[in-house]
């Protein structure tokens, strides 16, 4: 009788594994670090200065696009994740 009661009590133990959503993987393109900005030589010519400035602007915008992409990725993934309830 006591074993039967023991078994009955143990039937309440749950074995259900909860469903877990995997954290989405960030695209590799968005994980690239921003580069260092270029510097000028002491004897830099006007064209060198212009090129350095242009290269730095380009680097900034490339980095900004990746950053904006990451923010967009996060917001979209959060929305998708929040919908799963």
């Amino acid at each position, binding site marked *: 009788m006591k074993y039967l009661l023991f078994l009955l009590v143990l*039937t309440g133990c749950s074995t259900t594994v909860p469903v877990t959503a995997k954290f989405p993987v960030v695209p590799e393109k968005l994980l690239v670090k921003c580069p*260092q900005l270029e510097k000028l030589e*002491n004897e830099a010519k*006007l064209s060198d200065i212009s090129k350095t400035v242009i290269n730095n602007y*380009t680097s900034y915008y*490339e980095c900004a696009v*990746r950053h904006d992409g990451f923010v967009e990725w996060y917001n979209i993934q959060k929305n*998708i994740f929040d919908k*799963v309830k």
Partner: protein
Amino acid sequence: MWILQWLPNWIFYGIFFAGLLGLLATYVMKFIPFVYVYRTPIQAVSILAIAIGTYMSGAISNEEAWQARVKEMEAKVAAAEIESLKENVKIVEKVVKKTEYIKTRGEDIIKYIDREVVKYDTKFAPGGVCEIPKEFIKAINDAAEAPK
């Protein structure tokens, strides 16, 4: 419930009905000597069987409801993963497109510098008419320095 994974559901329904039949038998089949003699133990066991059967029927129903919920969640998670992958592709495409545009624009401007701005290099060279001051270069380099 682990016990429901090991034993088929019909066993618990069987226990319930066996208990019910046992209990009924103690009232209806009193003329059988065995039933008459062991009436009380049979009733006790039958009531216990009915209790276990009722409890486990509820547990089965609860388990089925949870399993349905798990399936529903699994379907939602799978759909979310597919949607997530699709959105990833869209974002990457957008980033690649914009990066290419920025690169091309930078290259075009560099070509323009090589074609037009170089004409003024001698004018702005050290010792030239409009020499670029060292302070100007220092200011630009200081601004380009990454914060530590």
